[in-house]
Each structure stands twice: as C-alpha cells, then as structure tokens.
C-alpha cells in the first residue's frame, strides 16, 4: 500500500499489521533515546491547511524519531496567502523532493486528490468531515493496550458525529476489529444518512452507560456548525455531556476517551477528563508510535500493509 487515505482501504489485516508494528514503536518511544535510523534520508512534508496542535506535532515527532527530514508547511506563512492553488503548492513541494506528505485540509477528499498529483506517499491527517485514519488507529491501539482486545467490546461514540471525521474513521476501525459501536447524538448532530455505517444509533446516553466498555466523547466542533443545530450548549451538556454524575454510572474499568482538544464543561466535565479512568493522555502518547508505524510501513519496510 502506498497511501493511507481511509480506514476503509486497510481491511482487518492492514489494521492488525499497523497495530502489531506500533507495539515495537511504543517500545522505542519509551526509551531514553527514542529514535531509530529506519527512515534516514527520507523527506516527509507536513502540509496542514487547517489548524492543529497534536496531530501535526505528533506526525512531526514521529518522522523525526524515524530519522527522516521534516519540512513543515503552514498556510499562514506560505504563498497560499498570495493566492497559490493547492495543485501548484503541492507540485512546488514535490519538485524539492519528498517521499511522503501528510495532509490536513478542511475539505473532504483533498488527500486523495493530492495522491493523484504526486509520486510520494500521502497520509490523510484529517480531511473535512470525512476521515482521520491515524486517530482511529491510535484509539484502537489504546483500547487494546488497556482492555486486551476490541472483540465484543461495547463502545459508544457520543456527540457531534455529523462534523466528525474521527467518528467516521473510528466506527470503521472499531467495527473491523470486532467491537459493537453505538452512536449517541441528538438527531441534528447526526449525518444526513448513516447508510453503510456498521453501528447502532440512540439518543439515550443514560440507558447505555452501565453496559459500556468504552465511552468515546467527541469534541463539539463549534467552528463547523454553520446552522443552528442545538438550542444551547448547556442543553447539550445536560443530555449528552459526560458529567461526573454520568461517569459514575459507567462500569468499573470502563475507558473514557476523547480525541482532543477538549471543551471542558461542554462535552466532558473537567473532573472526568482528569480522572484515573480516562486514557486521553495515553491516546496522545500512543499517537506518536502509531504514526511511526504508518510512516515506516509506507516508506521503509517494503512490505504491503493491505
């Protein structure tokens, strides 16, 4: 496989192989010297058309820990401000020589489009409402690390599913690994069609809580909410927010996850976010190892991951 654009392209074997190699990179990242020479001489470009802290830093530190050279492209300081098109920008970077490009963009399908233009490997780091495959991989890895397996696990994905690329990738990934996924959201925060999504849907979070192995809280993406989807954020919190009272109804050992950045007090209460059952910082730590595995499999291993 040359690109990582969607969880749908990977299949169970591809996901399993990435998670297996991730384990080796978790060992590397835990060392005093968390660096290996595997991608010496390779150039990886991070092309972020949308703001991001953790994903960009995570990819860049993954690339550096593999000894690759990293070129960072940030829209604010680039010729995009002078009106350069995406295609011209990509071709300019390609002319300087690159082996992989990590793309984030507010529009769905941009990573695929870039993959049609360049010879390099393309990694989707989030495209619009479409997908965010490395997030799904690091979430699956984190659940596995804590619970051993996803097989038969009950996972609820709660919140702003409509605007969430994380929800789409995670439903595909969790389902492929054998979990039972339920989406919990007000109807206005669900996509127009859920046809083909391998999951259940409910609006009753409280009934579901005692049966869950994992509750995955999504960020309320206020910047993407162009129409009135909710009467108020307070109303949302009262019905769907993971408050301390709700968290107390989760079974012992259930995991609380969030892709970040969190709106504390909206979708998740501050005391829940900092409680011992949450694995949010573990998700971030595993993110670097997962991205090392993806970059290594695409650029270094010579092996096929799908």
């Amino acid at each position, binding site marked *: 496989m040359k690109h990582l654009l969607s969880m749908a392209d990977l299949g169970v074997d591809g996901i399993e192989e990435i998670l297996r*190699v991730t384990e080796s990179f978790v060992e590397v990242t835990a060392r005093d010297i968390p660096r*290996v020479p595997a991608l010496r001489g390779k150039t990886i470009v991070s092309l972020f058309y949308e703001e991001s802290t953790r994903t960009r830093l995570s990819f860049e530190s993954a690339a550096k820990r593999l000894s690759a050279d990293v070129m960072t492209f940030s829209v604010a300081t680039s010729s995009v401000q002078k009106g350069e098109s995406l295609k011209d920008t990509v071709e300019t970077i390609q002319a300087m020589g690159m082996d992989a490009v990590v793309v984030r963009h507010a529009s769905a399908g941009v990573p695929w489009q870039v993959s049609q233009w360049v010879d390099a490997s393309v990694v989707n780091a989030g495209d619009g409402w479409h997908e965010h495959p490395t997030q799904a991989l690091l979430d699956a890895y984190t659940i596995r690390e804590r619970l051993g397996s996803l097989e038969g696990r009950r996972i609820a994905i709660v919140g702003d599913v409509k605007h969430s690329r994380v929800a789409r990738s995670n439903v595909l990934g969790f389902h492929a690994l054998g979990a039972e996924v339920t989406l919990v959201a007000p109807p206005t925060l669900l996509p127009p069609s859920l046809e083909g999504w391998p999951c259940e849907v409910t609006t009753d979070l409280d009934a579901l809580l005692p049966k869950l192995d994992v509750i995955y809280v999504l960020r309320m993406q206020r910047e993407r909410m162009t129409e009135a989807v909710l009467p108020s954020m307070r109303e949302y919190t009262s019905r769907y927010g993971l408050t301390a009272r709700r968290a107390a109804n989760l079974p012992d050992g259930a995991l609380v996850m969030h892709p970040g950045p969190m709106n504390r007090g909206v979708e998740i209460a501050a005391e829940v976010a900092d409680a011992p059952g949450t694995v949010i910082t573990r998700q971030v730590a595993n993110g670097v190892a997962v991205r090392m595995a993806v970059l290594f499999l695409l650029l270094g*291993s010579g092996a096929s991951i799908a």
Partner: protein
Amino acid sequence: MAERERYLTPPLGGVFVARAHVMTADDVRRAVTRIAHEILERNRGLSELVLIGLQTGGVPLAERLTEELARIEGTDVPVGTLDVAFYRDDIGLRPVLPETVTNIPFDLTGRTVVLVDDVLFTGRTIRAALNALADYGRAKAVQLAVMVDRGHRELPIRPDFVGKNLPTRRDEMVDVSDEGVVLGDMVPTRP
C-alpha cells in the same frame, strides 16, 4: 533474525530442503555448555554481565545459555531480546519488519553485554545490533556468541564464542533449532 525467516520473506520465497545434519541435538547441547564456560572464564564470573538474544534465532539460544550459566554458577544473569529491524541497512531494498518487540528491561551502561545469535553470516545483523545497543546505554564491552559461524563476512566483525565453524556456499542455508544444525538449500517455489 533466523535465516529461515529471512529466506521465507518475499521476494526470496521458497522451501528449505535439508541436505546434511551437521550438528545433532547433543552436539548443540555440548556447545552451549562449552560456550557458557568460555563466557565465565573470559569474564571471570557473572558480575555486571547481561545476555541479549537477537530476534528471532538468538532468543532461544540466549535462554539456554542463561540456564546453563545459572546451573554452573548458581546465579541468574539478566537476559533481554533485541529486534534490529529498525537499524538494518537494507531497509527499502527488501521487506524489513520487526518480528517481535525488543525487551531490554535494564540499563546497559557499565555492563558487559554478550550478544547471542544462532548464525553469523555477513555480519550486517550484528552491525545493526551494535548500533541499536548504543541507544540502550553505554555498555562496558560487547561480546558475540553464535552457534554457527558460516563465513562470508561483509564487515569487520568476528565472534568471541563459536559453537561450530561451518564452511558454506553463499547460497546455502543454515538452520539452527533444538534438534540440531542442518545445512540445506532454499528451493524457489515460484516458476
């Protein structure tokens, strides 16, 4: 990495056909005992000594050596495992994937490391292992123990402890297991 696995990874592919049994299980057992004594003699005991088996063929051998050292001296030696996939110099030339996760749960600084592998061939795996070890601390000394030295070195590397020196052709294959050491050929499966 055990040669069998290396040869079974694409694009090489093929079936191992045994030709000669060069060491029996008893020969291997006696060689392990002798190497254990040599390690003790050379290092004057076991203090500050650790064994590290190279994935995958060196791991069972490192465990047998540890048992033997414990039997002779009555103390346990720390034993680790190392997968050198991310340090190989043929990344990009052929499929390179880690077989298992490296496990070195101790600091190497100030200790004498005995690297253990089943077969020493070109020396490139050992070169990768030496680079990897440096990322786990500054060992006082590194020594190399192998069951079979089959020649054809491409780097200035030599073993400190050898089970058997076995002259081979480059295209032959050596398989080390609990049942002994077998010399054979890889017969391609593809037309």
